[in-house]
C-alpha cells in the first residue's frame, strides 16, 4: 500500500487531499490529515456540548422550569462538562498539536506516525462510547468531577457512571499516547539550528502541556481504577463503612484536575502568541520570559489542586498553603498578559478576525483570571464555592480563554489547512456576536452566584433575586447559538469557495508559512535551517534559500527522494478492539477476552510491520 504520488496541484485552485477516499482517511498516518480529523470531530462535539448547554439554559431561564426532569438535567450538565473538557477543547488543541507542531519545528511528521493515528481513533471511539448513552437517558449523571460516595455503586447503582468511568479511561489512553508522541517529536525532530529557545511559542506551550498530560493523566487513571474496582469488584477504596475516606477521590481527581485546566488553556495561549506578533508586525515581546512563565505554570500547576477543596475542611495549614500557591501561580499568568499587551504596543495592528479573537482572549481571560484569584483565598471561596460565581469564573477562562484562542487559531491556520481563507466579514460578525453573547451569558452569573445560587440545580424558586440574571444568561446562550452557526456556515463555505490563500497570506514569520497551502504531504522539500525565532522575518540567507526551495509547489515525494511512512489500518483496529474490550466490562467478560485477543494480535502485527519502505 505504498502512498500514491501526489498529482501536480495548479497554483490557483489548491488541490484537495489527493486520494481523499474514505479508505485513505481510515489508514492515514499523516499528521496533517489526523489534525484535520481531530478538528472535524472536536468541532462536532463542541456543537454537541453547546446544544446541551442551550437546553440547560432553557431549563433555567425562569424559576421552576419544567422543560427537563431532574434526572435528565443532571445527565445534561454532566455531559456538557465532560464533553466540553474531554471531547471538545482538548481535542481542538490536539488538532493544532497534530497539524502545527511538525510544521513549526520543520519536521516531516511526528516521531511515531502510527501511534498518532492510534490516539485519534481511540479518541473517536471513546467519544462515541461516552456520548451515545445520553440518547437513551443513560448518560453519566455524577458531574464532570464525579465525586464519590455519590458515584459509588451504593448511591449510583445504574450503568450511567460506568459509562463515565470507562469513557474517561479510554480518553486518557488517547491523550497519553499523543503526549509521548509530541514530547519526542518536539525534543528530537527540530530542524537544524532550531534550539529550544528558537522554537515558536505555540510549540513551547504544547511542550509544557504534554508534560502536564503525562504527569496528570496517570493520577486520574488510578482514581478511576479505584472507582471501577469499587463499582465492579466490591473493593472499598471509597466506602466510609470500611474506614475509607471519600476525600481520596477528590484529592486524586484534582491532582489531575488542575493540571487539566492548564492543559486546556496553554494551547490557546500558544495560538494567541502566534497570532498577536503576526498582526502587530512585531516579534513576541519577552520571548524567554514567556517560555519560563509557561514552564512555571506547568510545574506550579501540580501544587495548587486543593483550592478546589477549601470547603471540605482540610485545616488551616493546608488551606493557607494552597491559597498561597494559587496566588503564586497567578503571577506567571499575569506576566503572559502583560507580554501580549507589550507585543501589541507600538505595533502596526491589523485587526483580522484572528487578531480580534486573540485580543478577545486577552480581555476575557483577564476577567476570568481576576475572578479566579478572588476565590484563591479560602474565606472568600467558602462563600463562592459551588455557586454560580465559580461557573462564571471558569466559563470566562474556558470560553473566553480557550475557545476564543482556538477560534483565533482556526481563522489563522484555516488557509494552511485547506488552502483557502475564511471570509473576513462573516468572521467579524461571528466575533462580535460571540463577544457580546458570551458576556451576556456569563457575566450575570457573577451576580446570581454571589446571591447564593448554587451550581447544578435543575430548578430554583422565584423571588430569591436570581430570576432576571438567569433570564439574561439564557438570552445570551441563544445568541451564542446564532454566532456559532455563523462560524459553522463560514467554515464549510470557505472550504469550497473561500478566497485562495498562498503559502503566507498573513506574512507571518514562522516555518509553517514557508510551505505551500494546503501543506504537501512531505511538508518540507528540504529540511529548513533556522537561525532565529522568525525564520521568514529575520532568517539569514541560508534560511531564505531553504524557504525558497520549500515554497515550490507540486513536487512529489518520489521526485524529492523522500520516503513517507506506509498508510496502515492497524492503529484503527487496535484502537477499536481496545475500546470494545472495555465494553466487555458492561456486557460479559467473554467480550473482553475476545477483543483483548484481537487487540494483542493486531498490536503485534502493527509492531512487527515496517514503518516505511526500506530505503534503498
Amino acid at each position, binding site marked *: 500500500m505504498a502512498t500514491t504520488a501526489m498529482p501536480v496541484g495548479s497554483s490557483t485552485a489548491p488541490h484537495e487531499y489527493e486520494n481523499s477516499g474514505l479508505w485513505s482517511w481510515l489508514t492515514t498516518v499523516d499528521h496533517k490529515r489526523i489534525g484535520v480529523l481531530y478538528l472535524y470531530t472536536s468541532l462536532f462535539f463542541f456543537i454537541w456540548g453547546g446544544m446541551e448547554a442551550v437546553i440547560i439554559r432553557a431549563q433555567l431561564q425562569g424559576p421552576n422550569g419544567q422543560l427537563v426532569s431532574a434526572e435528565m438535567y443532571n445527565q445534561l450538565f454532566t455531559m456538557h462538562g465532560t464533553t466540553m473538557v474531554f471531547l471538545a477543547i482538548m481535542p481542538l488543541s490536539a488538532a493544532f498539536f497534530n497539524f502545527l507542531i511538525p510544521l513549526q519545528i520543520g519536521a516531516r511528521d511526528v516521531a511515531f506516525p502510527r501511534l498518532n493515528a492510534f490516539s485519534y481513533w481511540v479518541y473517536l471511539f471513546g467519544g462515541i462510547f461516552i456520548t451515545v448513552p445520553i440518547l437513551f437517558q443513560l448518560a453519566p449523571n455524577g458531574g464532570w468531577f464525579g465525586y464519590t460516595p455519590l458515584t459509588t455503586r451504593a448511591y449510583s447503582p445504574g450503568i450511567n457512571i460506568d459509562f463515565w468511568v470507562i469513557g474517561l479511561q479510554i480518553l486518557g489512553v488517547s491523550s497519553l499516547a499523543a503526549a509521548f508522541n509530541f514530547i519526542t517529536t518536539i*525534543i528530537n525532530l527540530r530542524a*537544524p*539550528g532550531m534550539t*529550544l*529557545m528558537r522554537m515558536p511559542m505555540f510549540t513551547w506551550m504544547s511542550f509544557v502541556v504534554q*508534560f502536564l498530560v503525562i504527569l496528570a493523566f496517570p493520577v486520574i487513571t488510578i482514581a478511576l481504577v479505584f472507582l471501577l474496582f469499587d463499582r465492579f469488584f466490591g473493593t472499598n477504596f471509597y466506602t466510609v463503612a470500611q474506614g475509607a475516606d471519600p476525600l481520596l477521590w477528590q484529592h486524586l481527581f484534582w491532582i489531575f484536575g488542575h493540571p487539566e485546566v492548564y492543559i486546556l488553556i496553554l494551547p490557546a495561549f500558544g495560538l494567541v502568541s502566534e497570532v498577536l506578533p503576526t498582526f502587530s508586525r512585531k516579534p513576541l515581546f519577552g520571548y524567554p520570559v514567556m517560555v519560563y512563565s509557561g514552564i512555571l505554570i506547568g*510545574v506550579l500547576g501540580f*501544587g495548587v489542586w*486543593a483550592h478546589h477543596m477549601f470547603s471540605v475542611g482540610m485545616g488551616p495549614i493546608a488551606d493557607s498553603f494552597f491559597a498561597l500557591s494559587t496566588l503564586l501561580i497567578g503571577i506567571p499568568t499575569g506576566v503572559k498578559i502583560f507580554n501580549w499587551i507589550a507585543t501589541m504596543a507600538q505595533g502596526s495592528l491589523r485587526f483580522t478576525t484572528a487578531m480580534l479573537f486573540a485580543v478577545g482572549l486577552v480581555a476575557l481571560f483577564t476577567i476570568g483570571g481576576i475572578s479566579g484569584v478572588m476565590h484563591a483565598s479560602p474565606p472568600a471561596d467558602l462563600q463562592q464555592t459551588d455557586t454560580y460565581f465559580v461557573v462564571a469564573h471558569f466559563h470566562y477562562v474556558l470560553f473566553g480563554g480557550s475557545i476564543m484562542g482556538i477560534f483565533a487559531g482556526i481563522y489563522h491556520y484555516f488557509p494552511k489547512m485547506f488552502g483557502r481563507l475564511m471570509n473576513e466579514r462573516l468572521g467579524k460578525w461571528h466575533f462580535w456576536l460571540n463577544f457580546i453573547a458570551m458576556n451576556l451569558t456569563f457575566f450575570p452569573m457573577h451576580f446570581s452566584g454571589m446571591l447564593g445560587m448554587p451550581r447544578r440545580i435543575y430548578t430554583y424558586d422565584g423571588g430569591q433575586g436570581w430570576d432576571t440574571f438567569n433570564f439574561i444568561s439564557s438570552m445570551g446562550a441563544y445568541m451564542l447559538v446564532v454566532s456559532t452557526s455563523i462560524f459553522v456556515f463560514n467554515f464549510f463555505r470557505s472550504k469550497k469557495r473561500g478566497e485562495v490563500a498562498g503559502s503566507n497570506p498573513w506574512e507571518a514569520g514562522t516555518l509553517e508559512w514557508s510551505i505551500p497551502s494546503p501543506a504537501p504531504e512531505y511538508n518540507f522539500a528540504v*529540511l529548513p535551517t533556522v537561525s532565529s525565532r522568525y525564520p521568514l522575518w529575520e532568517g539569514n540567507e541560508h534560511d531564505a534559500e531553504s524557504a525558497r526551495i520549500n515554497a515550490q509547489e507540486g513536487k512529489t515525494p518520489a521526485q524529492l527522494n523522500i520516503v513517507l511512512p506506509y498508510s496502515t489500518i492497524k492503529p484503527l483496529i487496535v484502537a477499536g478492539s481496545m475500546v470494545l474490550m472495555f465494553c466487555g466490562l458492561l456486557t460479559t467478560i467473554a467480550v473482553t477476552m475476545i477483543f483483548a485477543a484481537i487487540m494483542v494480535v493486531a498490536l503485534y502485527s502493527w509492531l512487527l510491520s515496517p514503518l516505511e519502505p526500506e530505503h534503498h
Partner: protein
Amino acid sequence: MANEPVHSDPAATTPHAAAHEHHHPTWQTYVKVGAVLTAITVAEVWAYYIPSLVASRIFVPMLLIMSAVKFITVVMFYMHLKYDHKLFRVLFTGPLFIAALTLLALMFLFGQLAAKLGR
C-alpha cells in the same frame, strides 16, 4: 524541573553526530552492582528481625535510606542514567520530583505524615 530547557543542546551538530560514546560498564561491574543490591536487601531484612531496632526511632529512616540507595544504584548503573545523555536525567528526575512532592503532600493531607513522624 520536569521540562527544564536542555541548555547543552548540540545546536548545529551534523544531522547524525557520532552517537555519544557507548562505553557501557563491563559485566564485572554489573555483577558487583548486583552483589551490592543483594547485600543491601539482606541488610534491610536482617534489620527487620531485630525487635530493638524495629522499635527504635531510626528504623524507618534507615530503611528509607537503604531503599533510596538501591533505587539510585539501579537507576544509575542498570538504566545507564549515569552514561547516557543528560536529557534522560531531566526526563526522569523531573517527574520523580513532582511525584515525590505529591506523595508527601497527600500523606500530610491525610494526617499520615504526622502519624509516621510522631511514631
